[in-house]
């Protein structure tokens, strides 16, 4: 089992203090990716055919040894296996290695320096120049590494750490947050502070993760995949890129009204429709729902005045094509929210500022009984969707007279919780607004009470300031199907969803899992407009032909014909247990959610308990799992689902376990026990 470079701790190891270590890895990717891509492209034209000597490539591989028991690729310097604590074979056999540990550490640091040599294997070529600068950067950073980490953590993680420091400095964060010797690294190494080279590094280290992926039982390894030319981004043509934005929050906090209002202000709802909604809402005696009705279209939802399934809408901001995923807030519809909003890149958490409503959102609806409100549950879920940028929209400020006191109170209370979820303060922005009175939505506020103390961004600016996450276009196509639309008259069938990796164009052949059916893409639609190509990150409807429509179901995955994803009904997961009253036992029955699929499942084995900080196994086969513990467990599902190890594909590797109406655990897939 090859090690997952850079993710040795898993993304969900901990939701508190040390989240920086874990989530930090993401941030680097997200922040710098776009620029990095551009750069790659600027240089790409003449470098795509360039190949570095093979000898160099092999020399640069990190030195690892594979555990005899669990086959995990451990670092050379580690004497025992990280997973199962078995001694290194050669160490046991001869004892020669006993004095070799010092060498190993040295070797590891060499590996950390050379580890960036990998990209030449990859389809997107990195220019030589960049490679050198990356190398020099790596060298420059080693004194820091040697000084700070004597015990060798994962090498790539070290690199990432340094990268993170670098980024913080670049973003002109307060210098006191950066410890002094880190500053020294930066100052001593002036060559890397130039923007170009500092950005090339994250892209390198990210691609290292891709390149280092293990070749699985899948006969064709993903590494052999070469993207075609048409898949790459066309800079000039595509000014705006897609951002999937989930709108989440407690029931009745005004999510749909906020989205409806945004769409209306940005001219996406015609006057006629708006007028119709207003009239109908008034007739039903629900005047305040007129904007929400732009999103809630079904009779049932309008009748009850709540959203039940995720609504999808589109608008354009100054920077992005925004795909709004308006999710339901009601407790019973959290499963719908999970299956509809997993594709989000960023999220708006809507909070009701009214007295009592905010508290209900935090601590559950029934006063006196400790519970988890959907503000909390959604925030945790959204974090485990992999979203790390959050806009907190403090709504209904008009109801509390735009009071600064109330706003500060909410910010303090919720801020603590968000931090414990793993959101970084710097990636959470706070916007006080009133959807109903149109304050601070697309233009700065006009109300004197609000402007007297708030001069920050309005919501639309906050959306524009979000960063796009990295898009893996260089990997084979994977598109989880979120929804299926059938057009009776034409006999057409369309699959909606977000492309997680790769790209697809009209006429491409794709394979549909489960079922292994080959289909042809007839056309692609985005917001009712036909387009030729869709790339990773795009939320589109793909109209397929040559397929039995009944085989197309939400929860399936559309893949590249040569690289179908695997199916499994028994999975090994690394989970973090959330605040649950009833402990998780062997045999506990849960509802299992993965991308857009769900199934009934039960825990068949609790393999080991993991330490929160180090991610090492502390206890094998414990009796049960309590709140806040993390562990390796095995689950068996009542039907196979498409899944993939988290290290291979993040979108197909995140799971959510729910029981008796609450989310009990979030986690990632570490192994498919019975891949089909």
């Amino acid at each position, binding site marked *: 089992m090859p090690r997952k470079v850079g993710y040795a701790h898993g993304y969900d190891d901990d939701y508190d203090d040390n989240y920086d270590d874990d989530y930090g890895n993401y941030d680097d990717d997200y922040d710098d990716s776009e620029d990095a891509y551009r750069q790659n492209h600027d240089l790409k034209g003449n470098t795509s055919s360039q190949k570095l000597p093979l000898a160099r490539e092999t020399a640069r591989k990190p030195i690892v040894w594979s555990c005899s028991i669990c086959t995990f690729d451990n670092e050379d310097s580690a004497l025992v296996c990280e997973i199962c604590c078995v001694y290194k074979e050669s160490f046991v056999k001869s004892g020669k290695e006993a004095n070799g540990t010092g060498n190993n550490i040295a070797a590891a640091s060499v590996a950390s320096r050379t580890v960036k040599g990998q990209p030449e294997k990859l389809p997107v070529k990195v220019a030589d120049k960049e490679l050198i600068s990356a190398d020099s950067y790596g060298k420059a950073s080693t004194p820091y590494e040697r000084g700070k980490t004597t015990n060798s953590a994962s090498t790539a993680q070290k690199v990432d750490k340094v990268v993170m420091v670098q980024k913080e400095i670049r973003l002109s964060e307060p210098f006191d947050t950066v410890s002094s010797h880190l500053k020294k690294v930066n100052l001593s190494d002036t060559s890397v502070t130039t923007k170009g080279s500092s950005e090339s590094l994250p892209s390198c280290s990210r691609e290292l993760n891709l390149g280092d992926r293990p070749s699985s039982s899948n006969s064709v390894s993903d590494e052999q995949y070469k993207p075609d030319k048409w898949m790459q981004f066309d800079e000039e043509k595509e000014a705006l890129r897609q951002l999937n934005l989930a709108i989440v929050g407690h029931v009745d906090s005004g999510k749909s009204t906020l989205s409806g209002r945004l769409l209306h202000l940005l001219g996406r709802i015609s006057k006629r429709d708006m007028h119709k909604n207003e009239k109908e809402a008034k007739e039903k005696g629900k005047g305040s729902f007129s904007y929400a009705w732009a999103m809630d279209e079904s009779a049932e939802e309008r009748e009850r005045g709540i959203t039940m399934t995720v609504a999808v809408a589109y608008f354009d901001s100054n920077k992005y094509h925004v795909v709004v995923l308006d999710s339901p807030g009601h407790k019973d519809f959290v499963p719908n929210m999970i299956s509809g909003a997993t594709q989000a890149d960023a999220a708006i958490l809507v909070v009701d500022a009214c007295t009592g409503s905010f508290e209900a959102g935090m601590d559950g609806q029934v006063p006196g009984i400790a519970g988890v409100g959907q503000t909390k549950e959604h925030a945790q879920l959204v974090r485990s969707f992999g979203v790390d940028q959050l806009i907190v929209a403090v709504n209904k400020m008009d109801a509390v007279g735009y009071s600064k006191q109330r706003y500060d109170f909410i910010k303090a209370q919720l801020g603590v919780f968000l931090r414990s979820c793993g959101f970084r303060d710097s990636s959470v922005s706070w916007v006080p607004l009133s959807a109903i009175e149109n304050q601070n939505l697309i233009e700065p506020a006009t109300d004197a009470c609000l402007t007297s103390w708030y001069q920050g961004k309005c919501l639309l600016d906050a959306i524009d300031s979000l960063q796009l996450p990295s898009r893996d276009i260089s990997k084979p196509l994977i598109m989880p199907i979120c*929804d299926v639309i059938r057009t009776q008259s034409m006999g057409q069938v369309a699959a909606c969803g977000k492309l997680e990796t790769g790209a697809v164009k009209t006429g491409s052949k794709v394979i549909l899992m489960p079922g292994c059916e080959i289909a042809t893409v007839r056309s692609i639609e985005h917001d009712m407009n036909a387009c030729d190509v869709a790339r990773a990150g795009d939320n589109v409807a793909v109209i397929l032909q040559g397929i039995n429509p009944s085989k197309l179901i939400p929860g399936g995955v559309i893949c590249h014909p040569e690289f179908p994803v695997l199916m499994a009904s028994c999975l090994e997961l690394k989970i973090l247990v959330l605040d649950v009253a009833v402990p998780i036992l062997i045999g506990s029955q849960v509802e299992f959610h993965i991308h857009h699929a769900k199934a009934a499942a039960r825990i068949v084995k609790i393999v080991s308990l993991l330490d929160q900080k180090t991610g090492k196994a502390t206890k094998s086969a414990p*009796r049960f799992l309590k709140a806040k513990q993390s562990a390796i467990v095995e689950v068996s599902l009542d039907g196979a689902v498409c899944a993939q190890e988290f290290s291979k594909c993040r979108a197909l590797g995140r799971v959510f376990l729910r029981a008796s109406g609450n989310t009990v655990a979030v986690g990632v897939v570490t192994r498919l026990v019975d891949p089909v």
Partner: protein
Amino acid sequence: MQLIRKNLVPNGPGTVKLKPVEDDDMWHAYNLICTGDKVEATTVRKVLREMASGGRDAERVKLKLEVKVEAVEYDKEGSVLRIRGKNLTVNDHVKIGQFHTLEIEPHRPFAITKDIWDSIALDILHQACDPSASADLSVILMQEGLAQLFLIGRSITTARARIETSIPRKHGPAIAGYETALKKFFENVLQAWLKHIDFSIVQCVVIASPGFTKDQFRDYLFLEAQRQDLRTIIENKSRIILAHATSGYKHSLKDVLESPNIMNLIKDTKAAKEVRALKDFFTMLSNDPSRACYGPRHVEFAHDRLAIQTLLITDNLFRNADIAERQRYVRLVESVKDSGGTVHIFSSMHASGEQLAQLTGIAALLRFPLPELDDLEM
């Protein structure tokens, strides 16, 4: 079950003659009959005869045979019990020692001879012949796109129908697709309802779902009943109850049975007691984890210290083919009872029993905390 004849010594040998009446009785018989017992029943066997001319002639003969049991099969959907074993009766058609499979049918008496009638077997016998405490309840568990129809008897829960359709989510103009898909889904559920629910047997019908699916379905049901003039539904409107469930999967059945208004309906039945006992176990586990344990190893560890207050055990542990294993569990149950503890034997055909079976089939609430349990591996 009707007890026709009983001739036995407790903890000794004996014979019992029984007549199954309901579906539940097959389940009891299944639990009662172990490998090694002798069962006598009327059966039909196809006999081949060679004619003088050399041709062959098959004939079905009705016989009364006694077999020594080697395997027992129970089909929960059809409530059929088949007993396979070697013939012990002398007759013209089947040789002694030849294999034969008996099928136990409703209203046909059969006799069981055991070498040892232990306390568990006597308990089952007693329960099976107790005519009171019958709760026939039907539950329709649904969520958007998935519905399951269950019949809950005294000691078994049977899944009668499962309807699964994919319902598209709202998407602008495709909203009509959502409404029609939902209507089609309800129509299928209604068909299953008409096929499986007989109000002369079922006391009441519970419609359970998360969200508003249950209300939507009820409205649809009454509307359709009016339209199609379905008398059974219109006349029994008062016996249709709504309840909240957290999902449409089978394990949510537990939530439905736990809810107070349903609990009242099934109060005295075995199902209700099991649901309560399991709930107590989980409450204890969350409040004071060192006073609850599960898994054979942990339970025995606690039993050695006489710590067991309440023992929860599923009946399929007694159905073990290994006689020694069964004896071990029987002894455990008896000694817990002797030391003043209570024992709940869960029917593995109920949702709660199924859940316990997943939790290794055995669990216990303890008199005093045993923190050492944490150090013991599962």
